[in-house]
């Protein structure tokens, strides 16, 4: 098609849209609302899921959690068991985890409910959790040195805000030197688990925690997967090793794979986006019908004009093109405004929900593309009707 011809048709379309300002605006509004809701919802869902995913990944993406209660004969994992698991191909390292609750004493303050976690050195290598001070060094991690890292809640509740690093706190009857402070946690655990009755969190070397808890063996460990290793393969390797350790006894262990959880979340998020997008596109459909209605009215109103244009030498295709361009222009303008509004809605929504706002190019492309598609789809029939008008009848029309 001739380039000048397209430009001319486009100019004529704009003139016609402008000369019917009110009607064009109202028609466009349907598309604006449709596109805005599609873009807004999709962007909000994406933002929320990015945020949730981020929190999950803080919890440990690329991490497998082994819970090994063991059997009556053999409870938990011994040091040699852990070493065996460390030999599984693809394993970067293993941090045994011991959790317990105990009392803490600092000066005159006695806190009854302090959450204590025993961790290994590798935990701090894998997770960036220390805000100030330092984490354990090798000797402290392996031996029985009494050092601890506390969180801000602990500093606030137990230590009454006293500068913690270098101070000593009494945990379960033992004096622990504070060597570091944890970053505030924004992981999902804090959202899911009610932590209001806990006076604070403390991390100590896992061997100390094991002793404190009175248990002989570790029952839980985080397994870090090497970069480039396939988590599922590592998981299979761990299962083989654990089956070996427990003589294939049922229910002796479980492996929690964060990655598969995230995959599931991703699927759910995709379904949610599709569903919400689908619902919102009903608005778009209604907008499209609005466009079709306006175009049909426009064709009827301009019957004589169409006849005249034909008498002046316009081919049917040109008439069709002109009306089609008019409907596409109308809906695309609506689409662009809709994208802007949708992103604004998503931005406000993200702020309100404390979620991440991500402007996705896909969504913008989708919105503009959708509106163009609606313009073609719903402009087709009216444009076709215009192009098929008999010039004589059209000229005679009142």
């Amino acid at each position, binding site marked *: 098609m001739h380039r000048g011809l397209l430009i001319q048709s486009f100019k004529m379309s704009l003139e016609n849209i402008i000369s019917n300002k009110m009607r064009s605006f109202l028609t466009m509004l349907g598309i604006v609302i449709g596109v805005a809701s599609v873009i807004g919802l999709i962007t909000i869902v994406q933002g929320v899921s990015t945020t949730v995913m981020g929190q999950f990944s803080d919890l440990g993406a690329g991490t497998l959690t082994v819970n090994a209660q063991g059997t009556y004969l053999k409870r938990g994992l011994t040091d040699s068991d852990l070493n065996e698991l460390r030999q599984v191909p693809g394993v970067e390292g293993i941090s045994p985890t011991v959790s317990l609750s105990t009392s803490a004493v600092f000066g005159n303050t006695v806190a009854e409910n302090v959450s204590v976690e025993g961790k290994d050195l590798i935990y701090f290598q894998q997770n960036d959790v220390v805000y100030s001070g330092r984490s354990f060094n090798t000797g402290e991690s392996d031996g029985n040195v009494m050092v601890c890292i506390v969180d801000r809640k602990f500093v606030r509740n137990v230590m009454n805000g006293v500068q913690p690093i270098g101070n000593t706190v009494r945990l379960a009857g033992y004096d622990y030197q504070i060597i570091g402070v944890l970053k505030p946690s924004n992981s999902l655990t804090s959202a899911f688990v009610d932590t209001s009755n806990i006076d604070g969190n403390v991390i100590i070397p896992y061997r100390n925690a094991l002793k404190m808890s009175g248990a002989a063996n570790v029952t839980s460990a985080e397994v870090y997967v090497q970069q480039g290793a396939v988590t599922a393969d590592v998981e299979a390797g761990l299962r083989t090793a654990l089956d070996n350790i427990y003589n294939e006894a049922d229910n002796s262990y479980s492996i929690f794979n964060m990655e598969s959880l995230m995959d599931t979340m991703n699927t759910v998020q995709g379904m949610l986006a599709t569903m919400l997008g689908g619902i919102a596109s009903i608005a778009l459909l209604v907008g499209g019908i609005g466009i079709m209605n306006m175009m049909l009215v426009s064709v009827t109103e301009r019957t004589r004009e169409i006849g*005249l*244009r*034909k*008498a*002046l*030498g*316009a*081919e*049917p295709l040109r008439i069709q093109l002109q009306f089609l361009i008019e409907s596409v222009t109308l809906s695309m303008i609506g689409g662009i405004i809709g994208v802007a509004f949708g992103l604004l809605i998503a931005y406000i929504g993200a702020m309100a929900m404390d979620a991440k706002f991500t402007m996705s190019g896909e969504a913008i492309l989708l919105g503009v593309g959708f509106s163009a598609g609606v313009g073609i789809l719903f402009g087709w029939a009216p444009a076709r009707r215009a192009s098929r008008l008999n010039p004589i009848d059209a*000229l005679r029309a009142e």
Partner: protein
Amino acid sequence: MKDNPLGTEDNPGTGTEILRMKGITKDYVMGEEISHVLKGIDLSVREGEFLAILGPSGSGKSTLMNMIGCLDTPTSGEYYLNGKRIADQSEASLAHIRSKEIGFIFQSFYLLQRQTAFQNVELPLIYANMPDRERKRRVREVLAKVGLADKMDHYPNQLSGGQQQRVAIARAVANNPTILLADEPTGALDQATGRQVMELFHSLNDEGRTIIMITHDRKIAEHADRIVSILDGNISEGDLDDA
């Protein structure tokens, strides 16, 4: 000139034949009734002629005009326009023929109200795919010719009836058509303005432009060099009442 016989062979001086109709009929089916609007029209028009087709309303003159203007196709008969056979043509090629061969002038002007005089005149040139610069130049040229060089950016509602019809005439001649086809061109104008339009027709005709004018008004028809009368779908040479 007015009394020149149709004779195509014995009067070659008026130019080459550009329009020939032979036995053109047009039937309209209305329910079970068939109305024969044109009953065998024979017509020949030579280049440079100023022809008036005179007839009362209901005589079939509008149908004949549509036929000449390639807006409609005959039920039977042969129609050649500038050597082209106008039958079995597709809608698209009829549009091309209209664009190239016919310049329409309507009784009620039919200007696009939302477009300026300039844009109205430009329209057929756009449809003829004339290049931008040439097109603008041509529009200015024809508007100057009809004496509206200073009214190019006016909208139709800012122009008088006579001025509007002159814009329409400029639009009709813009693409240099073979035939200027006017349907009651003075029908919506007062006498003085009508006379001015007729003078414009004369000067266009003097430049060699072929004009076919359809009218029911004998006085207007007498401006033409040659009159054919149409009555009840039949055509005859000259003014019937003169006989």
